């Protein structure tokens, strides 16, 4: 074991071993699921109305959550990255808090804020809005848990973008909106795509906050994860098939979107 020499205990070998172990840890459960898939009856199981409904709800909810996250997450990331103010570090930590909420707690917290007896319950009732048990609640639950991923990705992107280009444009007399649309947004487009991929995938897999805040109603709030959980009781094959389907769709989303970031 000479230092600096090529021995078995090199950093490269150690890393390769550790990387393989972690990959195997990720892939083995997936392989386990795939090994259980009843391929012969797969098509029949998946074409049921409940599965299609749940898939549709998941796709729509995750997409809406991603759009909302982008619309409000970009400004938030911009403020966090480009403005300095007191309490910024605290704000940054607060933004990430939904990521560490146990999901069911997230659902209870959403009820405590937007439920009938929640902090804003009175205001919402006055406006004639009742969120729990609606599809809107499922979208909000998905947004709550997934938006931090987008803010995180965008803030990192903005931090690594070249400020000098923006400053040059400003010096040349470009208005802020023009700087934003011609310089800033294009320079962070890869972060936007990467962030959207993560946000979408996290939103599509959302379970705990949804079942707590939006309840479980087929065709209204029963997204794929909820339908899978319900299928676990009687129909393990169906549950496994639906899981594989959801994972497949999310994998495609991650692949399609991530490839554009890693190879700009």
């Amino acid at each position: 074991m000479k230092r600096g020499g090529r021995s078995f205990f090199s950093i490269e070998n150690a890393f390769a071993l550790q990387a393989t172990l972690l990959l195997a840890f990720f892939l083995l459960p997936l392989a386990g699921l795939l090994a259980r898939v009843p391929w012969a009856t797969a098509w029949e199981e998946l074409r049921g109305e409940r599965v299609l409904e749940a898939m549709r709800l998941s796709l729509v909810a995750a997409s809406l959550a991603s759009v909302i996250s982008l619309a409000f997450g970009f400004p938030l990331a911009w403020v966090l990255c480009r403005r300095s103010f007191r309490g910024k570090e605290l704000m940054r930590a607060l933004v990430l808090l939904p990521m560490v909420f146990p999901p069911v707690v997230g659902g209870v917290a959403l009820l405590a804020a937007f439920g009938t007896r929640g902090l804003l319950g009175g205001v919402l009732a006055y406006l004639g809005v009742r969120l729990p048990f609606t599809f809107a609640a499922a979208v909000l639950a998905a947004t709550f848990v997934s938006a931090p991923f987008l803010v995180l990705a965008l803030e990192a992107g903005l931090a690594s973008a070249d400020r000098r280009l923006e400053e040059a444009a400003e010096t040349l007399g470009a208005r802020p909106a023009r700087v934003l649309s011609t310089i800033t947004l294009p320079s962070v487009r890869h972060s936007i795509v990467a962030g959207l991929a993560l946000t979408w995938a996290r939103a599509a897999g959302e379970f705990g906050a949804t079942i707590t805040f939006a309840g479980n109603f087929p065709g209204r709030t029963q997204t794929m994860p909820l339908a899978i959980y319900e299928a676990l009781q009687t129909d393990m094959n169906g549950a496994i098939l639906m899981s594989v389907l959801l994972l497949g769709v999310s994998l495609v989303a991650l692949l399609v979107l991530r490839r554009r970031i890693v190879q700009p």
Partner: protein
Amino acid sequence: MTTHPRRAGPRAQRPLFASLLLVFLLSAGCARSERSELVVFAAASLGEALEAVADSFAAGSDGAPVVLNLAASHILAAQIEEGAPADLFVSADSAQMERLVASGRARGPFVLALNRLVLLVPRGNPAGIRRLSDLAREGTRVVVGTEACPVGSYTRALLERAGLSEEIGRNVVSYEESVRGVVQKVRLGEADAGVAYATDAGGGPPGEIESIEIPEAAGMRVACFAAPLDGAEGRPEVRRFLGYLREGEGARILALHGFGRP
């Protein structure tokens, strides 16, 4: 952050490996020393009662520590079918128990306790629910269990019996995955009413939830079943716990929590 390339050399890994090895050894040691503990997979509706039973059993001179895994019966049955190591299964209905008896995991199930269905309404009963048929009133937000979980299948049977399946079904806003979900939604005031077990009305701050008897449910048998798994009845502490549950202090504690004696 500064990096220290020298520290990352092979020598530095020795303490790492050593500590990992130590952790493995320690955890193996722990697993062995607690072999006398009992693992009980129990229906959520019996959670509080069984926690009290478990504490009391563990405190006894010939007791043993009891580890409870609480969830909806059908989830527990699925976990056990997937090979979860458990000594005892307590199901809120017969269907999930029969499922495990059929697959050979459970043997000798018996009725552990009786329960009954009630209506739960949040504090102040904002929708003015008095009886089951009030749940059919337009705009009432009703939560029930999903059909495959015990409380849901009992509720379905109840509504069919009362001839109100369609009328009340229209008002269902959520099919909860376990009775705990039903209670939670009522407790938080999100639902105007829910159908749950009589034993769910207790717990939590008094007055937060009110229960209303359902005359239509009279005569419906709502029974909780228990059975040892995978031949665990051969272990003395399992046998002692079963006896404790059936006629010992455990049975008395269950009765204190509102369960009927079989």
